[in-house]
């Protein structure tokens, strides 16, 4: 390739990189922030339900299962399915589920599922406040909120595709990717922002590529419907056939035979498993077709073999014989295995706490990459605009949306946590209102720069929102102390690190926002109040016209 052609190619890639990032930057930032929070969804959910009992992981699973079976016998003696989730690893509660047969008005049979979190001391269900928890934050990163799922999948897929284009073009345009590997030059305005964008892009590049590509794969069943139709035909029936083919795991679970039989207890299977595998290793245990001759008991250990989840074991529910061991991907095709590995990598289920923190940090760096890219775009044009005296409406818009997004979204998430603590525990629809609180506050943070732009500079508006964020995150542990017993004094003293970790992380976030606000306090304002910028557009346009007229007259 000649130098000129290479220059043109790089220039085209630069254009693509800039616009693919800018167009969907806000949605991508939202996806990265909420998705990153999702790596601690269980811990966030647990913090948002302070009424649940604090479970010490060392309690015997035999004792816990006795408590669970006793409760299930009381409330679900007729149910055909029982499931018990043990508190182990990141699972922080003793949880039981059972199904109840229902009939609708047309006489069609169905199933209704019930769930309870048990207090292992009393054996009674713990009544906890309704909340969206960390799961809703996680769910939002691909399904968004307030809009139909399919539309959301299309939007998030499209944004992920733009992100992927941004990554590839970013690698192409970055000439000195290895030379600049460690380079961050603070206090050099535009150079500093570019360095920060590079550092946050290049250092976690394997993570960025993996998370974006696997994200695209995750939603391919929505976006690649044509491929499925081409092989299986159109219509719901053919679609179901496709899903049956790819998700069948080689285990034919027998349905109920309709012949009553006495089943063995879950505790007896647990005892046998513990003798072989050791105590307190299970993640869950459950029984299907309860009371029937075809009853079977399913269980799995809380363990990963590398990236693979532990095998699922299925026992005969009548005589307790081991019927089947499901190792997951033994019968899957190479393509399915690849899909499974990519989705497992994306979700990070296998990750221990150390690796989970690395995921979290990489996710935040991804959000930082997007944010620094958006700021870089605006600052570059602001510098040019200040020199020329012409400020475009697009620049003013991006500058204000940047503030409302980059700091506004974290503020909105903090409000989500505040609403959880401030709304009465019995408030009807409180989970919905937590989320409404998040979006209302985000809308306010987006509107704020537009409302105060006539009297404040952009730097002052950044600083205001950073101070708000610092205060909201900093006082969250204080609010927790005032409203619950699961405050730092209690959680640290008892070694409940999942709960203590949440409060400590909020304090760290508060310190980061405070530091950013402090640094901005000493930064020179590069912008005048924004309305005068708009006036500047008019004045400079008049000047331009005058210059043209003068030139024409000469």
């Amino acid at each position, binding site marked *: 390739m000649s130098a000129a052609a290479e220059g043109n190619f790089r220039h085209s890639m630069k254009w693509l990189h800039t616009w693919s990032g800018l167009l969907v930057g806000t949605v991508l930032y939202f996806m990265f922030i909420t998705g990153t929070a999702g790596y601690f969804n269980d811990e966030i959910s647990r913090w948002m339900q302070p009424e649940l009992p604090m479970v010490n992981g060392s309690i015997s699973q035999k004792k816990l299962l006795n408590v669970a079976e006793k409760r299930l016998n009381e409330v679900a003696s007729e149910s055909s399915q029982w499931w018990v989730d043990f508190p182990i690893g990141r699972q922080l509660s003793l949880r039981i589920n059972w199904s109840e047969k229902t009939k609708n008005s047309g006489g069609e049979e169905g199933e209704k599922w019930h769930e309870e979190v048990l207090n292992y001391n009393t054996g009674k269900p713990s009544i906890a406040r309704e909340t969206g928890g960390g799961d809703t934050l996680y769910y939002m990163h691909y399904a968004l909120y307030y809009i139909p799922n399919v539309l959301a999948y299309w939007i998030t897929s499209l944004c992920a595709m733009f992100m992927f284009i941004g990554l590839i073009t970013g690698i192409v345009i970055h000439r000195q990717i290895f030379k600049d590997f460690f380079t961050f*030059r603070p206090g050099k305005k535009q150079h500093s922002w570019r360095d920060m964008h590079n*550092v946050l892009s290049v*250092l976690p590049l394997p993570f960025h590529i993996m998370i974006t590509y696997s994200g695209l794969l995750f939603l391919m069943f929505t976006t690649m419907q044509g491929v499925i139709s081409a092989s299986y035909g159109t219509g719901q029936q053919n679609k179901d056939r496709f899903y049956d083919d790819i998700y069948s795991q080689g285990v034919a679970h027998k349905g109920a035979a309709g012949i009553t039989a006495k089943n063995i207890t879950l505790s007896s299977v647990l005892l046998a498993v513990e003798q072989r595998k050791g105590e307190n290793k299970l993640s869950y245990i459950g029984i299907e077709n309860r009371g029937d001759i075809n009853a079977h008991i399913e269980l799995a250990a809380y363990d990963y073999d590398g990236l693979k989840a532990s095998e699922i074991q299925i026992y005969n529910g009548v005589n307790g014989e081991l019927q089947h061991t499901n190792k997951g991907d033994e019968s899957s095709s190479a393509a399915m295995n690849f899909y499974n590995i990519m989705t497992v990598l994306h979700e990070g289920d296998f990750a221990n706490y150390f*690796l989970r923190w*690395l995921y979290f940090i990489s996710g935040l760096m991804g959000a930082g990459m997007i944010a620094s890219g958006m700021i870089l775009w605006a600052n570059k044009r602001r510098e040019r605009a200040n020199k020329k005296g012409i400020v475009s409406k697009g620049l003013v818009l991006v500058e204000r949306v940047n503030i409302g997004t980059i700091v506004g979204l974290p503020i909105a998430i903090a409000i989500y946590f505040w609403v959880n603590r401030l709304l009465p525990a019995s408030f009807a629809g409180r989970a919905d209102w937590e989320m409404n609180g998040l979006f209302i506050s985000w809308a306010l943070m987006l509107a704020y720069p537009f409302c105060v732009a006539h009297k404040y500079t952009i730097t002052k508006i950044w600083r205001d929102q950073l101070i708000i964020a610092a205060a909201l995150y900093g006082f969250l542990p204080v609010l927790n102390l005032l409203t619950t017993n699961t405050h730092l004094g209690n959680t640290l003293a008892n070694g409940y690190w999942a709960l203590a970790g949440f409060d400590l992380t909020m304090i760290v976030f508060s310190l980061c926002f405070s530091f950013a606000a402090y640094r901005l306090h000493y930064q020179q304002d590069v912008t005048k109040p924004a309305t005068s910028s708009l006036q500047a557009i008019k004045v400079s346009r008049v000047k331009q016209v005058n210059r043209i007229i003068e030139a024409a007259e000469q």
Partner: protein
Amino acid sequence: MMIFANTALFIGFFVISMSIKRHFKQLFPQRKMASLKWLLIFRTIGYTSLLLSASLYITGLGIGLGLVSFFGLLTLVTFMQSLCFSYKPQWLVPIGFASILYLIIYSCLNI
């Protein structure tokens, strides 16, 4: 073994940074710039150390988990190193040489 792998990872990037002129000057402001031959030697040692670290991760944790852990920690180590270069480059030299010393002693004791 994981501590050994982490140390090798840090040393790998420390030595690679020595092979970049800008960072060499930051690390050793009093010294004369190393010759091209030395820069190449640093680069080779650095990449070898990274390969050693990756192979230790894979041996210890399996290919899947090993690679995920290696790249996860790589991000953290390089980020910390990048912050050090920006604010406290003088810290890197003692930490780097202490790590090399640790790696040598550990290797001698385990051979």
